[in-house]
C-alpha cells in the first residue's frame, strides 16, 4: 500500500498552515507594536543633549525623575480623570447599550447607527463644538439665561467638568459597542430562568445580567480608560491647558521641552500601568464566564 502524498493528508501539519496565516498579523505586531515599544524603552534610558537631541545611553535617571512628587501627582490625577470618565461612560453607556441590544432588530440597527454617527466627523471638530456649547456666551449659557437669568453665566468651559464632559462624550461609543455585543449575545432564556426562580426585575440585573455581560464591560472599560489616561487634546481645548494630565506632560516632553528620553520614560511607565491593570482585570474575571 502506498501512502498518500503528504499535502493531501488533511490536518497533517496544521501548525505550519496556521503560522503561515498568522504571518501578516505577527509582522504587523512586530513592526508597529514591538519595535516602537523597544525604541521607546531604549530612548527612555538615554539622555537629552543641549539641543534636545537624544543621546543614547544607559541611565535610569529618567525613571528616578518619575518618582518626583510632581509627576506622581500628575499620574494620579490622570488616573482619577480617566476613572471618573470611565465610570460615567459605564453609567450612561450600559443602559443605552442594553436597550439597544434588546430593541427590535430594525430599531436596533438605527440606534447603532446613531451611536456611530459622531465618528463621521473629526474628533477635533466635535471638541470645538463642545467649546461652542460650553463657553460663556455659548448655547448652554444662553439656555440657562433664558430659563433662569440669575444662574447665568455658568463658567463651564475651561474647567475639569468641561474636560470630563468632553472625554465622556468622545469615548462613550467605545463603551456602548462592546457592552452591546455582550448583551446581544446574552441568552434571553437565562433572564427568564432568573425570573422563574424568583428574581424580580431589580435582582435579575446584579445576579445574572451583570456577571454575564462582564466581558463586554471589561472590554469597554479598557477601551475608554486606556486612551483617556493619555488624552491631551481635550484637556487643552476644553480644560484651557490649566491642569496638566500625563498626556499633556508627555506631549510637552516631545514637542516643547524636547526631552524625548524623559517623555519616553513617562510613556513606558504608562505602558507598564496598562499591563498591570490588564493582568488585574484578567485575574478578576470570574470563572465560567469565559465560555458562555
Amino acid at each position, binding site marked *: 500500500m502506498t501512502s498518500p502524498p503528504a499535502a493531501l493528508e488533511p490536518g497533517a501539519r496544521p501548525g505550519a498552515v496556521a503560522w503561515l496565516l498568522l504571518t501578516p498579523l505577527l509582522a504587523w505586531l512586530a513592526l508597529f507594536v514591538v519595535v516602537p515599544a523597544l525604541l521607546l524603552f531604549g530612548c527612555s534610558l538615554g539622555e537629552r543633549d*543641549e*539641543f*534636545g537631541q537624544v543621546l543614547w545611553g544607559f541611565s535610569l535617571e529618567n525613571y528616578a525623575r518619575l518618582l518626583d512628587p510632581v509627576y506622581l501627582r*500628575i499620574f494620579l490625577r490622570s488616573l482619577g480623570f480617566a476613572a471618573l470618565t470611565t465610570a460615567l461612560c459605564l453609567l450612561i453607556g450600559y443602559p443605552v447599550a442594553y436597550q439597544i441590544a434588546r430593541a427590535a432588530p430594525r430599531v436596533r440597527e438605527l440606534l447603532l447607527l446613531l451611536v456611530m454617527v459622531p465618528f463621521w466627523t473629526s474628533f477635533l471638530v466635535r471638541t470645538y463644538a463642545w467649546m461652542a456649547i460650553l463657553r460663556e*456666551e455659548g448655547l448652554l449659557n444662553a439656555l440657562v439665561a433664558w430659563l433662569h437669568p440669575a444662574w447665568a453665566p455658568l463658567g463651564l*468651559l*475651561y474647567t475639569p467638568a468641561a474636560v470630563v464632559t468632553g472625554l465622556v462624550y468622545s469615548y462613550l461609543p467605545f463603551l456602548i459597542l462592546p457592552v452591546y455585543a455582550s448583551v446581544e449575545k446574552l441568552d434571553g432564556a437565562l433572564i427568564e430562568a432568573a425570573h422563574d426562580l424568583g428574581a424580580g426585575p431589580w435582582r435579575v440585573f446584579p445576579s445574572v445580567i451583570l456577571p454575564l455581560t462582564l466581558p463586554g464591560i471589561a472590554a469597554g472599560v479598557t477601551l475608554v480608560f486606556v486612551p483617556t489616561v493619555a488624552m491631551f487634546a481635550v484637556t487643552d481645548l476644553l480644560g484651557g491647558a*490649566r491642569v496638566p494630565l500625563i498626556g499633556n506632560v508627555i506631549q510637552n516632553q516631545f*514637542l516643547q521641552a524636547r*526631552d524625548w528620553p524623559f517623555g519616553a520614560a513617562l510613556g513606558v511607565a504608562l505602558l507598564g500601568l496598562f499591563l498591570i491593570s490588564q493582568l488585574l482585570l484578567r485575574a478578576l474575571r470570574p470563572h465560567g464566564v469565559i465560555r458562555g
Partner: protein
Amino acid sequence: MKFKTPTLPGRLAALLLLLLPVAARGAGELNLFGWSEYIPQPVLEGFTRETGIKVNFETYSSNEEMLAKLVAGGGRYDLVQPSDFTAEAMIRRKLLQPLDRARLTGLGNLAPEFTGRAHDPEGRYTVPYMSGSVGIVVNTEKVKTPVRGYRDVFQAVHRDRIVVVNDSRELVSWALYALGLPVNTIDAASLARVRPLLAEWIKLVKVFDSDSPKTALLNGDVDLGVVWSGEAALLWRENRKFQYLLPAEGAHQFVDVLAIPAGARNVTEAHRFIDYILRPEVSRQISAAFPYTNPNLAARRLLTPDELANPASYPNAGKLESFRDIGRSAADIDRLVTDLKSAK
C-alpha cells in the same frame, strides 16, 4: 474589434508615461514647513501659478515641534520658518545652509532694524518673514483699571479672567522681567526667584492657549491676556475694545525667519520662494491676513492707514528684547511650569 495584449516595449512605454508626472513634479517642487496660521493660502497659490513650482506645505505650532520633525526627517524639508532664537541654535548646530544672497533680489526691501540681528549678524542664513511681540491685550469694556505691565495683569481681581500663551519660556520670561532679571541667562538661581511669583500668577489664569488665544477673548470667556501681537492685532481689527500694549517691565520681540535646512534638496526653489515673499505686494498680502509687524519697508508703504494704526502690529516704542538660545535650560523651564501648573 479585438484588443491585443500590448508588447513588452509597449508596456514599458506605458509605465514610463505613468512615472513621468512624478519625475516632473520632483523637479519643480518645494517642501515648505511653516507655522500654522502664518502663510496665507493665496500666497502659496500665487507662487505656484507664477513659477509652476508645486508647494508641499506642512505646518507646526512650536519651534520645538519643527526641530523635532526636521531632525528626525532628514532632508524632507526645503524651507523652514524658525523664530530667531531657534534659528540661532540651528546655525550653531549646522542645521541650516548659507543662502545665496545674489539670488534674493528683494533683500533691499527690508527695514534695517530687522537685518543683522544677533541670531544671524551677517544675514548669511536667514531672511526675516514677520516680526512680532508678546504683549498685553485688554478688553477695555470689562477692565476699567489701568493695565501697564505684567503685575497689573496678574492681580487677584482678574482671577479666571486671563488667557496666556501656553509656552513655558514666555511665562518664565514675564516673571523674569517683572523681577528685573535677565531673560536670556537662565540658571537655577533665577528660576528659584521666579518660582513663587509665577506660582501666584499661574493660579489666576483661566486658559493656556498658544494656537488661538484670541478665541477665549472674543467669546467673552476672559477679559485680558498676554498673547502674540498678531492675535491681538486681529482682535483689534474685530473690535477696538481690545487694546494692545507692551508691558512696561519689558517684552519679548521675536523675528520669524525663512531659512533653508542643511539637507534641503530643492535649494533653487527655496530661494525663489524667499524672493517671492520679499516682494512688496506679496508681503503686503501676508500682512493683510496675519497683521504682525512687517519687516518689509516697501510692503509697509502699501498698507492702509488703518492697518498701520493697529497698536498690536505697530506698537509704540517699548522695551523690546530678543530671546537667545538658552540650551539645556529649556527643560528646566518646562519642568518648573509643569510643576507649578500641577500644584493648582
